[in-house]
């Protein structure tokens, strides 16, 4: 076995697991879990081997479609970017698989759950490894499908299927733009392979390609998948899925795929200044808006979901500011601490018998010391406490924001302040003070199988920002933030934390009410109204069209078919001979055509 087969092993191991679970071990939940965990571990080990090997020289691909105008290979890209992402996806994936074995124990759909998780790993790794747009798009859709399956895992309840639908449909809107962008690039360059597009982009200017439009259409994919404004509405609802799924898919990896994709086609962003501006703008808006919404949420997972939105906004903004390094750095550290926070939240929910309202918790620090300690590490990392990983990456982001204008810097700083505020609020209300309900009084730490991933994730959450660690993963080229950026970042962190502690210590209920934020700027309502006014109006017209035109046409068609049937039946004085007659009639008709000039 040579090194070029390693990427394929990484990619195919989870797929094998899906097949095994679906076809063989559906009956046995424990074996299914084992198979799935084994597959992700195989991928992880292979990823480590790939990570340590030097970058391969040649192109590692097989031909998939080969026509004169359309050449699509199935190939893998191994470079610094994908190597880092492989480690993140398989490493965190492995921990969350293990955690799931504890969290999902006793669930009737456990086999289905693990099949879904393996399918997700397969498709996510496909995105990471893809070396062309078509392959990436296929896996992009597959990720959407697996996310749909996993959000809707508890399909017998009311909310999850609705949330799954919402996620899928919202994503489809973005994907449609993505597909159009791919088509535009393909028509202009006659290629879908990243490196080839990059090459032809360098050689000639395209008269017939509006590069800005193409880049923005591609960016639509990111808007959908990374839940950027205005398609951000699906992510908070996606929290209806099992918590490990939220941690893996809706915090650490899948939603980061949009950012990863932008980093992969960074040459496009570089080439179109107008698109940069839009990307940075969308990222800034998302980060500030989501952070402000988070301060008024009461559901522990939703707070984290809004926080994820806000951090993704940071990354997208950094891409828009042409700081790929900052974006990837933050993606890297964020993956660890956000997964940690979600798993911690999962442990809290597990210990509280599926209670998610933070105002029904309180004082859990004493009942769940381990969960509390690891959650604290995650919180400190997220809010950018000096010494923790998030501090370093956030400084990079702020520096990137500064390179734009003072407004983006101010917005980013405000976001940092809000982040600090809502996370400390969450921590204070959940873990400190007195228990507010009976369930909180009897809370307990999670079993070892769930505690272990928490502890392991806490380590990189703390360490990932230090030079000796990050330099293996993201090349930073000695970009140092100016001193005053650090100062501002620290001020934002400290003031937010102090305010939150002062406001929320010992409170039994939320002392502030901002309806606008609690209701998420009424986005869902606005969209609902928008849909009612436009889509339903359209739908009514379509309905009319359907009823009067299409239905009529169908009736005409099926009626026509039946009529033809009757017509032929009337020939059937003797069935066989009618056939012979028709046969002859057909021949005569053709001969008549041929002989006539």
């Amino acid at each position, binding site marked *: 076995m040579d090194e070029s087969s390693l990427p394929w092993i990484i990619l195919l191991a989870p797929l094998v697991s899906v097949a095994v679970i679906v076809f063989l071990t559906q009956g046995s939940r424990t074996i299914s879990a084992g198979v799935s965990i084994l597959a992700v571990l195989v991928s992880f080990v292979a990823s480590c081997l790939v990570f340590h090997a030097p970058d391969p020289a040649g192109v590692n691909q097989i031909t998939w479609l080969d026509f004169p105008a359309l050449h699509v290979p199935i190939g893998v890209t191994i470079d610094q970017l994908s190597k880092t992402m492989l480690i993140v996806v398989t490493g965190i994936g492995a921990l969350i698989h293990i955690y799931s074995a504890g969290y999902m124990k006793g669930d009737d759909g456990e086999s289905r759950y693990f099949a879904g998780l393996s399918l997700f790993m397969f498709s996510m790794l496909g995105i990471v490894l893809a070396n062309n747009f078509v392959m990436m798009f296929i896996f992009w859709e597959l990720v959407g499908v697996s996310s749909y399956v996993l959000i809707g895992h508890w399909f017998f309840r009311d909310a999850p299927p609705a949330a799954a639908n919402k996620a899928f449909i919202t994503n489809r809107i973005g994907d449609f733009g993505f597909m159009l962008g791919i088509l535009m690039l393909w028509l202009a360059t006659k290629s879908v392979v990243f490196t080839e597009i990059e090459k032809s982009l360098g050689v000639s200017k395209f008269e017939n390609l509006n590069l800005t439009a193409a880049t923005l259409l591609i960016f639509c994919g990111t808007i959908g998948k990374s839940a950027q404004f205005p398609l951000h509405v699906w992510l908070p609802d996606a929290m209806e899925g099992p918590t490990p799924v939220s941690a893996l898919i809706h915090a650490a990896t899948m939603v980061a795929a949009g950012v990863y994709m932008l980093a992969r086609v960074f040459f496009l962003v570089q080439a179109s200044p107008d698109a940069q501006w839009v990307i940075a703008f969308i990222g800034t808006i998302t980060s500030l808006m989501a952070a402000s919404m988070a301060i008024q949420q009461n559901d522990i997972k939703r707070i984290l979901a809004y926080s994820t939105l806000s951090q993704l906004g940071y990354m997208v903004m950094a891409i828009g500011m042409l700081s790929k390094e900052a974006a990837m750095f933050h993606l890297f550290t964020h993956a660890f601490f956000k997964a940690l926070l979600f798993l911690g939240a999962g442990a809290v929910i597990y210990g509280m018998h599926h209670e998610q309202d933070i105002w029904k918790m309180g004082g859990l620090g004493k009942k769940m010391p381990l969960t509390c300690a690891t959650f604290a590490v995650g919180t400190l990392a997220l809010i950018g406490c000096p010494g923790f990983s998030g501090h370093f990456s956030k400084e990079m982001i702020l520096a990137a924001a500064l390179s734009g204008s003072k407004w983006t810097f101010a917005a980013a700083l405000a976001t940092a302040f809000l982040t600090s505020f809502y996370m400390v609020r969450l921590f204070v209300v959940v873990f400190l003070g007195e228990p507010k309900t009976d369930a909180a009084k009897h809370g307990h730490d999670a079993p070892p199988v769930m505690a272990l991933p928490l502890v392991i994730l806490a380590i990189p959450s703390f360490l990932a920002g230090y030079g000796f660690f990050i330099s293996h993963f993201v090349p930073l080229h000695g970009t140092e933030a100016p001193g005053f950026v650090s100062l501002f970042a620290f001020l934002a962190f400290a003031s937010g934390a102090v305010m939150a502690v002062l406001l929320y210590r010992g409170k039994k209920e939320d002392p502030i009410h901002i309806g606008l934020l609690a209701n998420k700027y009424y986005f869902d309502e606005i969209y609902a109204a928008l849909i009612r006014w436009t889509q339903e109006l359209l739908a009514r017209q379509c309905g009319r069209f359907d009823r009067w035109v299409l239905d009529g046409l169908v009736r005409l068609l099926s009626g026509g078919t039946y009529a033809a049937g009757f017509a032929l039946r009337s020939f059937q004085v003797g*069935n066989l001979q009618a056939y012979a007659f028709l046969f002859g009639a057909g021949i005569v008709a053709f001969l008549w055509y041929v002989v006539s000039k």
Partner: protein
Amino acid sequence: MNLNDYLAVSGLLFAIGFAGVMLRRNIIIIFMCLELMLNAANLSLVAFSRFHVSAAGLPDYNGQMLVFFIITVAAAEVAVGLAVIVSLYRARRTTHVEDITSMKF
């Protein structure tokens, strides 16, 4: 007699055969008409062969070879076909096309 005469007779035979297939009610007769159509082809093949004279003054034997194959195949077809028709007669007590219309649209 020239080639056209042969071809006219052959065409007539073919037309009679086809008309019989479309008009006669008895399956055995229909089957005979089908054989007539094959024989029409045979006749014109032989005629064509006879009038394609090579430099040595010999007819082109390709066509006549095909005739032999057609005769052989037709014999096989008749053997199998009659057996099927006899089975049908045993099962349904009829060989009329009007009676075998149980399967329609």
